[in-house]
């Protein structure tokens, strides 16, 4: 039962990832791609955490944390660049 629910969650997150990926490639503007990138990374965090759960390895939590940190930084830097403030 729990196994099935976990697989279902992974499937839903995967579908969300594909939708965001479509927006990422479709654009049409750079800002749209950055929004899509932001959403992609957040979905990826859930993906990493699910992996940590199933593999039973706590060290992946740190990976997720650093990933969240870097994606935040990346979005801020790109947004500043779009604004012309970099």
């Amino acid at each position, binding site marked *: 039962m729990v196994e099935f629910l976990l697989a279902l969650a992974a499937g839903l*997150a995967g579908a969300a990832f594909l939708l965001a990926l479509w927006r990422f490639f479709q654009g049409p503007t750079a800002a749209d791609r950055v929004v899509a990138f932001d959403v992609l990374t957040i979905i990826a965090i859930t993906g990493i955490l699910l992996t940590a759960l199933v593999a039973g390895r706590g060290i992946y939590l740190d990976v997720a944390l650093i990933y*969240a940190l870097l994606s935040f930084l990346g979005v801020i830097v790109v947004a500043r660049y779009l604004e012309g403030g970099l």
Partner: protein
Amino acid sequence: MDASLYAVTPLNLLGALLLVLGAAFLLLGGLGLVRMPDVFNRIQAGTKATTLGTLLSLAGMGCLRPDWGLKLLLIGLFILFTNPLSSQVLARAAHRVGLKKSPLTQVDRLAEDTGEAP
């Protein structure tokens, strides 16, 4: 592989259900990203749905692995503080470079005040 994870206990079931709910909200965010007509509405859909989705998933994992609680809480706090910030910075940048807004848009007080073309 972690066998105790798949034991059917109330807490494990609650955790797995929260994970499914969280992933459903992530899917909602992805759907919003595809369906919304302009970048501001897309940011709205993206940021709200992914914040709640991630928080619910983290809560679910906390139920499945209570020993990870502290670190999951840390990730949750981080998401809660940074997610709206990156959306705001992005929205401001999109507005400043004058991205096309959906034709449905009613008013734009910011453009009026800064003297840009609406």
